[in-house]
């Protein structure tokens, strides 16, 4: 099983995690810029964080044979802090970097006017820099938040095929499925979404445009739950090719739309999988 985790905050994880992930088949990750648990009080803190996502962290990952890309954005929670708003002015320079494969995480936390503005501005940046967008949906008031998220995406004019709406569950998947956006599911150790529930969603809605991630960070989370989901799929009767589609080819196809995804230094995939031509992107 080869696994691409399309949403994981490796900055918060140890080298032991990298080793366990590589041993279990995780060969590539995307690390979205997000909230660090402790509020930041000035744009310089973000600049150092973004530099780390494009410098030290990919190097650290490479020591374990894992390919690391990033998404860059001002996250919705900190978009509410006036001291952090100037981060929006830093973004254009970062969005031009080779290692950036999407704008994200953008979206809503508490659905405030400040979040509205940051979300809209950053979807426009995604269009300007020809990048996909990774959209976080709120954990509180999720269904209403997801509906409002989809309205903003539609108004922005971005191609829905270049948007992943993340942290979906049984209640919100139906809202997103017919919009053309990609469906992101974060698998957590408890609550939210588990491997067996994910398998049921795949049985009901199919594998098309589905992205499965661990969203592992500094909280209670597990970077191997992508692998566990693949095993649960096999146990439920999905084929190895289904698992490869969901855990590798789908995330590759989504992020390859950036034209910057570079998986060229990874070992060649098994010959039965022809999807690898997507991996290098165009541009």
């Amino acid at each position, binding site marked *: 099983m080869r696994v691409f985790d399309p949403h994981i905050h490796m900055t918060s994880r140890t080298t032991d995690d990298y080793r366990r992930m590589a041993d279990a088949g995780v060969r590539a990750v995307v690390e979205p810029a997000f909230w660090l648990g402790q509020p930041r009080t000035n744009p310089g803190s973000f600049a150092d964080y973004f*530099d780390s996502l*494009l*410098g*030290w962290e*990919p*190097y650290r990952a490479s020591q374990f044979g894992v390919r690391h890309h990033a998404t860059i954005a001002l996250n919705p929670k900190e978009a509410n802090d006036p001291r952090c708003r100037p981060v929006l002015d830093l973004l254009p*320079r970062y969005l*031009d*970097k*080779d*290692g950036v494969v999407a704008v994200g995480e953008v979206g809503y936390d508490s659905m405030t006017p400040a979040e509205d503005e940051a979300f809209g501005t950053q979807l426009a940046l995604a269009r300007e820099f020809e990048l996909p967008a990774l959209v976080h949906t709120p954990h509180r008031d999720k269904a209403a938040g997801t509906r409002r998220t989809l309205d903003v995406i539609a108004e922005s004019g971005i191609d829905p095929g270049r948007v992943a709406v993340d942290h979906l569950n049984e209640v919100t998947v139906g809202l997103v499925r017919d919009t053309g956006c990609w469906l992101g599911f974060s698998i957590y150790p408890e609550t939210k979404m588990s491997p067996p529930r994910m398998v049921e969603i795949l049985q009901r809605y199919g594998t098309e445009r589905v992205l499965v991630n661990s969203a592992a960070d500094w909280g209670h989370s597990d970077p191997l739950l992508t692998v566990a989901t693949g095993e649960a799929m096999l146990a439920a009767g999905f084929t190895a090719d289904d698992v490869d589609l969901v855990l590798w080819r789908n995330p590759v196809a989504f992020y390859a739309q950036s*034209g*910057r995804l*570079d998986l*060229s230094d990874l070992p060649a995939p098994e010959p039965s999988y022809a999807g690898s031509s997507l991996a290098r*992107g165009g*541009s």
Partner: protein
Amino acid sequence: MRADELRGALPGVPEKEWLSDAEARVRTDPDQLPALFARAGRKLGRQPLADRPDWTPGLAGRVLLLLAVPHKDDRVLDLYWHGDTGERLAVLHALALLPIGDAGVPLVEDALRTNDTRLVAAALGPYARHLSPATWRQGVVKCVFMGVPLSRVDRLDERADAELAAMLTGLAQERAAAGRRMPADATALLNRIQQKQED
């Protein structure tokens, strides 16, 4: 590599017209440099060059962009401080070719403070002649420590002195105490320094 060697290494690169256009643009409008410099990596390609496997078209193209831009000092510093690792490597490789005197020293010192072997190795290229002997020696010992081949260090034998030998001897003793070996190129360097002192 010199500028003419860089250009000579690029004929097989399909996107070299993108590069000629980008060079012309930064000559007339240097404010376009940051965006063009950032994009050069993926536009020109990241595969090793046929004749120089330690270089890529993207790296060579970025160095040529730096050579093309007028009024370089502040722009070069800005590209490093706002660059990702690939961009920083290109700036470090370009320093020795640019007429900027000692202005690049803080960049090289920064690269030597990192834990990224690519940056540390690039910091000890030809521009390292601007580094103080103490900083340079620390850089060489750091290479040994991190396993960077000493062949990457410019003018190694010319600058290697008794103080460097003392530092390497100390490292060798620590390694021996831990049951670990010194890299062969470091032991060979130590022997050459000691030989030179006896002559």
